[in-house]
């Protein structure tokens, strides 16, 4: 089966001091219809820029320098702005971390929702109103008819995120890119939002790229996972396989540094050092300066070992299951 989204060797660069810094460095990933891909990484790993690149939202001077973004067969990396605009919001939608940034503070929720509908479809005001109201109801907002007339500041953080999700779902997109949509929310509200998301995407067969730093969320939500470090996907595969038998030392370190994975009160397993800035990323394997297994081989750039769907980028991968 051809994947809905097939990203091949994507490179997104930001010029700085006369050279191009690779925020996204030869990223390849695939998402099938109805599938949830967890894109995991720490700050600065390039996970958000990957999402922006797929959406066509990389602001100049940043640009896509190489690679293909095949969405339903056509290459978005080469598409003209008008084609990208017609896809954005209609077939590919995005939900951001801070809904207050997505929503216009001076427009009523209803206005913002019908505006989105009119941008892509020809329909009457009554129809648009009804669609907006139904979408609000779908994401669990009580009395949607009245809430259409409310302004964003009249909603709580969790409710605002529901509105943002409702807007993303308005056109029944094929793919939703969710960039840390629950990070700013309390655990109880986070569970509510994920639960709504699960229901809606399953009902509609939507594919999802869930970008997050939180392995625990991804472990219960995603079908497959891709772990990013220094702009590259260092490991990807089915969620169970990667979490139970992580090949790349970084994936392993990341899993083991989560407090609930450690025995209460003991020292946490920690990865030494910090992620270097993009300008100071080591040649070869970006992780080698923090890696216990690194040797002279790692000064070479590690290729992809494995298949299109399941691969890692490490010369000295772990073979054993995680204890």
């Amino acid at each position, binding site marked *: 089966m051809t994947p809905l989204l097939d990203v091949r060797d994507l490179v997104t660069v930001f010029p700085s001091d006369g050279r191009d810094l690779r925020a996204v460095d030869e990223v390849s990933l695939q998402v099938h219809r109805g599938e949830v891909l967890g894109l995991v990484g720490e700050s600065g790993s390039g996970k958000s820029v990957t999402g922006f690149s797929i959406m066509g939202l990389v602001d100049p001077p940043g640009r896509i320098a190489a690679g293909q973004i095949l969405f339903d067969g056509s290459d978005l990396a080469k598409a003209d702005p008008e084609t990208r605009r017609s896809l954005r919001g209609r077939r590919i939608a995005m939900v951001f971390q801070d809904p207050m940034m997505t929503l216009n503070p001076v427009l009523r929720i209803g206005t913002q929702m019908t505006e989105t509908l009119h941008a892509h479809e020809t329909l009457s005001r009554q129809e648009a109103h009804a669609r907006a109201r139904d979408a609000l109801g779908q994401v669990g907002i009580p009395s949607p008819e009245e809430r259409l007339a409310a302004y964003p500041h009249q909603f709580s953080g969790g409710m605002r995120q529901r509105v943002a999700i409702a807007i993303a779902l308005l056109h029944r997109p094929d793919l939703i890119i969710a960039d840390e949509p629950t990070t700013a929310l*309390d*655990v109880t509200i986070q569970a509510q939002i994920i639960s709504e998301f*699960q229901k809606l995407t399953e009902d509609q067969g939507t594919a999802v790229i869930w970008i997050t*730093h939180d392995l625990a969320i991804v*472990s219960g*939500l995603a079908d497959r996972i891709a772990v990013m470090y220094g702009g590259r996907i260092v490991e990807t595969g089915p969620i169970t396989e990667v979490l139970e038998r992580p090949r790349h030392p970084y994936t392993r370190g990341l899993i083991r540094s989560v407090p*609930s994975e450690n025995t209460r009160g003991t020292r*946490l397993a920690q990865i030494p050092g910090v992620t270097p800035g993009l300008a100071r990323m080591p040649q070869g394997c970006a992780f080698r300066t923090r890696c216990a297994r690194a040797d002279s081989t790692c000064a070479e750039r590690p290729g992809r070992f494995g298949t299109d769907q399941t691969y890692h980028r490490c010369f000295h991968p772990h073979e054993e299951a995680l204890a």
Partner: protein
Amino acid sequence: MSMSLTETPATAPLLDLRQVSRTFGSRPDLAARIAIALGAAKPPPVVHALDEVNLTVRKGEVLGLVGESGCGKSTLGRIAAGILPPSSGQVLWKGEDRQRLSGRQLRDADLAAQMIFQNPMAALNPRMSIETLVAEAPQIHGMIQGDRSAYVDDYLRKAGFDPAMKRRLPHQFSGGQRARVNIARALAVQPDFLVCDESVAALDVSIQAQILNLFMDLREQLDLTYLFVSHDLGVVEHISDRVAIMYLGRVVEEAPVAEVFARPNHPYTQQLLAEVPRIRPGKRRFAAMKGELPSPLDPPKGCHFHPRCPMAHERCRVEVPKRREIAPGHSSACHLNDQQAA
């Protein structure tokens, strides 16, 4: 919860909060008060951040304080650190009422409790070098006897920060390193008690693990006591000896960490613990607790949790449940415990 009145400073807990309440709101001026009395104006809204909280922190322990945004956990942390006075109730520091302390005693109590905040950049003056930031407080309080530079180096090293970089400015460092500077700065006045208010919340997982390890090492080296305020149950579970769960201005349950995770008693705790994200491969349904935290401007009557509680009955809507011991060291504020006992 035991509250004997015959405690001496030697056996008293390090910190003992008794019936501590805190409200926030504007005080109406004379004209406004007359208007309110005549019914021409509404009284200004008052936020009930803390509502008769009892809590003790024993020397050498790590007490984790957990709750959702807006439940009052930061307010409680600030009162515990002595940087915010309570509206009513008593704060006993080593058995002495903080409000009766003055002069040297008050200064010692202030220095002994230090706070580490969530946003390390906001807590550091961007125009001061790391060295000045760390040296400022101990210098003012005459704690540096010999070489200032050596004193600063010592505390930077304790916090895992390379002293060679101490002449640089805060913006030149990453979030994790700034967190270390804040820790060094708190340690530099030689405190007994650290209040960590979401101190690791803004950090990446791998950096968070480093800082949590540092907290645990420092506890052993310097004999520190912690109040660890966090919304992250995984972090609190890992680092704490005891845990207090807050809901809308009240502590609803308190117990040793193993006990609370094995046998949560309060319906809120039970639902909250069910949401702890854990790495468990395989898809699962995210079940959701209904509703949101009500506004502290107008908290529900009776038990604050009753509008979201699946087990709520008539009594919960009218009567505030008292927190009482249900097992050794484990207390919970829920009316259901009375029914089971009766």
